[in-house]
């Protein structure tokens, strides 16, 4: 004989609007073995939790059923509630009457009837629930941060500050990310380098951060607390343990590659550091641009190097690193605007995209910070075109969030550096951050011309002799309702921020889900924005969605704290509801190995049976359901328990 308590949650009106909650509680009270049933507005709140705990004591309950939201939401909450009242936490059953009931019908009768059936099933199952004991695993106290932009740098520094060892993995030959390309940052117009480069240096100097540039994640094994990450160190053809960063090699190099850092606006050497403040300061050789690699002779860099650091025979190497948690901060790509032929990028030399303009402003950029165009002229009039690819169903449906603000920054810098006329062609000005609206106001006062309308076309064809030699931007000036043609020297496109082109590959490596655009998915948009469905792997910055620097830094800090909650522990409690194989019945077919999404079943070739790695098992039951020999059962979801629940359901 069990003593079961049933607690029905209204969830405000989320459940109570469709399910007749008091009728449901009354019904539950009539079921065999149910000694108490109650309903309450918010069962997860303090009074709700106290109600359950008081009833456990008052009625001496040995099983608890909570009819509320999805167990994904609050199973852990209610497990703690009953554990604190002295019950084993696994003597709880959650009945989902919100997502799977109240939210899928408008009919009160249907919803209430289904809720009754679900509760009846839960009562049947609850009678058979067994107390389970949690197990513990040791936790590796190191953390890996993937991506060395401002987000990853922030996360790494914060973690190192707590005394933890951090591996910072960056695919480029320097850290810094997009922020290192900027000259100024909005809305304060802080010098980007002045606030970023000290942090880059702090990473380099911090003994607890192991900086791994020119590296990529190759393979990820393991689980929360015990990840095993294989890293590919790409061949630099320069032995950094010997290199003293004198850069004599780069002076002698005759090879020419395209400067990624300057967005292709200029050439760089084949042996190079991307920019003078790069971290580390040691060069790499671009194989595709190197005369020796292309033609078999040259080796001028080798002759110039006093340290014998040039190593043409270097190959990629691999390294296994064990960490307890991982932060993915891999950033974004700027949308390629060439396919939007109407804007003429790639066709008219006077058309630039946002990152190119950032480089023109930058004193370390290709023009030394002067705004001069590809033809050497200083533009006297500039149009900045918002929402290029953003908020557009044909490209990226979302708002890229930062473009309005950086377009304002561009307008300010263009005014300052060229004294030209600057037009902003916008759909809606979005300036919701701290100090952002004020920045917008400032730019209005700086006499930037705001035109409400999305640019339709950029052309150099015009009948108007006054427009000769100009680019003409065509737009519906929606506030006057008139078609406008605006002659300018320079057009700046503010394109959408997109997921990295290889984001899918990164998602596969870390078992992350992606949203419909390809950005990494957070576990919960409000309550777990940095967590993912893979325990121990966190995301931060623009890899989760478009973000500006303040938000990215905040997320980097937050992700560091999240990672710390894992690696600060010596041991981690494992879910006890895991699968177990009865080796006597196992036929060795390996169905379980194939169906498991977590890689938990491992086939033991010596014994010819499958075994479950309980640290990886999430207790989903796929293996048990697919086992033809019924050799696997899942604790907390045993065959008996599931069959009993079905029987209870079928009574209705």
């Amino acid at each position, binding site marked *: 004989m069990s003593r079961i308590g049933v607690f029905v949650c209204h969830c405000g009106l989320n459940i109570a609007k469709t399910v007749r909650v008091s009728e449901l509680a009354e019904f539950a009270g009539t079921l065999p073995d149910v000694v108490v049933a109650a309903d309450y507005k918010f069962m997860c709140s303090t009074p709700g939790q106290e109600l359950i705990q008081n009833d456990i004591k008052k009625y001496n309950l040995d099983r608890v059923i909570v009819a509320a939201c999805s167990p994904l939401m609050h199973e852990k909450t209610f497990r703690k509630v009953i554990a604190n009242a002295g019950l084993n936490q696994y003597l709880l059953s959650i009945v989902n009457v919100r997502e799977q009931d109240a939210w899928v019908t408008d009919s009160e009768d249907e919803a209430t009837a289904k809720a009754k059936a679900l509760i009846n099933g839960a009562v049947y199952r609850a009678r058979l629930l067994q107390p389970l004991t949690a197990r513990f695993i040791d936790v590796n106290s190191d953390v890996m941060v993937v991506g060395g932009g401002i987000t990853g740098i922030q996360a790494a520094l914060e973690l190192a500050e707590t005394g933890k060892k951090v591996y910072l993995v960056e695919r480029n030959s320097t850290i810094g990310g997009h922020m290192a390309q900027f000259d100024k940052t909005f809305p304060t117009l802080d010098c980007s380098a002045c606030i970023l480069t000290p942090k880059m240096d702090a990473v380099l100097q911090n003994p607890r951060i192991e900086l791994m540039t020119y590296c990529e994640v190759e393979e990820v094994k393991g689980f929360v607390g015990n990840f095993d990450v294989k890293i590919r160190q790409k061949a630099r053809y320069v032995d950094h343990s010997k290199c003293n960063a004198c850069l004599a090699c780069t002076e002698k190099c005759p090879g020419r590659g395209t400067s990624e850092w300057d967005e292709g606006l200029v050439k760089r050497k084949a042996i190079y550091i991307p920019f003078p403040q790069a971290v580390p300061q040691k060069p790499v050789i671009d194989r595709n641009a190197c005369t020796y690699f292309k033609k078999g002779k040259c080796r001028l860099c080798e002759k110039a190097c006093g340290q014998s650091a040039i190593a043409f025979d270097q190959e990629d190497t691999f390294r296994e690193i064990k960490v307890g948690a991982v932060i993915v901060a891999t950033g974004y790509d700027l949308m390629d605007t060439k396919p939007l032929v109407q804007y003429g990028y790639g066709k008219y030399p006077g058309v630039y995209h946002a990152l190119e303009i950032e480089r023109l402003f930058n004193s370390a950029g290709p023009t030394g910070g002067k705004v001069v165009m590809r033809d050497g002229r200083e533009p006297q009039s500039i149009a900045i075109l918002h929402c290029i690819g953003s908020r557009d169903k044909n490209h990226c449906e979302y708002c890229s969030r930062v473009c309005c603000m950086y377009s304002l920054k561009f307008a300010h810098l263009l005014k300052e550096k060229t004294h030209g006329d600057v037009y902003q062609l916008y759909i809606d000005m979005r300036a919701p951050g701290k100090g952002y609206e004020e920045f917008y106001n400032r730019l209005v006062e700086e006499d930037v011309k705001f035109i409400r309308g999305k640019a339709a076309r950029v052309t150099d064809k015009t009948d108007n002799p006054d427009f000769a030699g100009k680019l003409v931007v065509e737009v519906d000036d929606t506030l006057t309702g008139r*078609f406008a043609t605006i002659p300018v020297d320079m057009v700046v496109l503010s394109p959408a921020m997109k997921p990295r082109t290889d984001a899918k590959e990164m998602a596969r490596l870390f078992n992350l889900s992606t949203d419909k655009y390809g950005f990494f998915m957070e576990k919960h948009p409000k309550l777990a924005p940095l967590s993912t469905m893979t325990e121990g792997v966190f995301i931060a910055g623009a890899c989760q969605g478009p973000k500006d620097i303040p938000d990215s830094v905040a997320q980097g800090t937050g992700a560091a704290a999240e990672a710390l909650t894992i690696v600060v522990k010596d041991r981690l409690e494992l879910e006890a509801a895991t699968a177990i194989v009865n080796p006597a019945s196992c036929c060795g077919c390996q169905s379980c190995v194939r169906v498991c999404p977590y890689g938990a079943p491992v086939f033991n070739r010596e014994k010819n049976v499958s075994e479950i790695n309980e640290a990886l098992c999430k207790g989903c039951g796929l293996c048990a359901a697919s086992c033809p020999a019924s050799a696997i059962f899942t604790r907390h979801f045993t065959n008996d328990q599931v069959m009993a629940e079905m029987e209870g359901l079928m009574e209705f």
Partner: protein
Amino acid sequence: MSTALTPYLEMSQAIAEAGGEAFRKCYQCGTCTGTCPWSPVTEFSIRKLIRLSQFGYDGIEDLMWGCTTCKFCVDRCPRGVEIIDLVKSIRNMYAGGGLLPTSLRSFVGSLASRGNPWSGDVEKRNDWGKGKYPLFAEGMDYLYWTCCTVCYDPRNVLVAKASAEILNRSGLSWGLPGTDAQCCGESVKKVGDFDLFERIKGNNLGLFKAGGARKILTISPHCLATFKQEYGGDAEVVHFSELLDDLIRSGKIQPKKDRGGLKVTYHDPCYLGRHSGIYDAPRDILKALPGVELVEMDRIREQSMCCGGGGGGLWMERAKGERLSDLRVEEALATGATVLATSCPYCIAMLEDSVRTLNADDRIQVKDLTELVYESLEG
């Protein structure tokens, strides 16, 4: 009297129910109007029409007849607003209330009484062929669906003849529809007379079925798009340019005559290009003609400029300076081409008209692709 606008949400609701509900998605960015071919020459604003529709505001009737349904705005709209559907449903609402402009009444009236928009005698539909070409019979490869315009419009009759002669040399078996064929109904649907469109469609679908047509060949891209997107029959529908491209590639017709460096530019009809996605076949045909040099205008393919003849525009009068076809002919002249080729009877009519009114007859000729190919055949 107050000059303030007042929302008339019943009107807005009625437009939505007539098929224009996509206006709800519009965020008034102006991409449509910035893209619209009218914008440089008239004050017609499709964005404003959408705005007025969202609230049922007064003034819809002043703007509703401007759109040529060229589809440029629809392709560019960042919100996926089906602007042509909105235009059709607004016109349907108002035309139902008797607000059809005078210039459109004769064309709609002719369609209703004779099944063609040109007030042509029903029994004279196939007179252009002088009995030289077969009628379609079951088992033939193609039902060659001649557009009303190539049957009745004297300029376009030349296109009908050239195309029929090409077919006769192709080795294919083909036939014309009987005189009971009617207009495809594309224009009448775009001016909002949905009932008449349904009647015409029923008639033509009946003909396809009774005749056992498996493949329908159209000379007009308007017939092509309508059969493919609105009729829903099971026959395969191909445009003449697609077939012509195949015939040349397979050597079934061999254009051999050297045109001696004839400069030709090609105008993409909206209904062949943006509505049907056919851009390459016409160009491949021109490139296959000996001694023909294809020179392109600035606005081509997906960005092609409209001739102004769609959406009922063919029957509406426009003041000089407000004719899209004039702008297009000027653009063609600027390329140095002496032939402006296209592949749509409406475009032919519009462009031909502009060449005459611009007194450019001695500098440029408007030709259908079929005419150019026919001229390149020997003998």
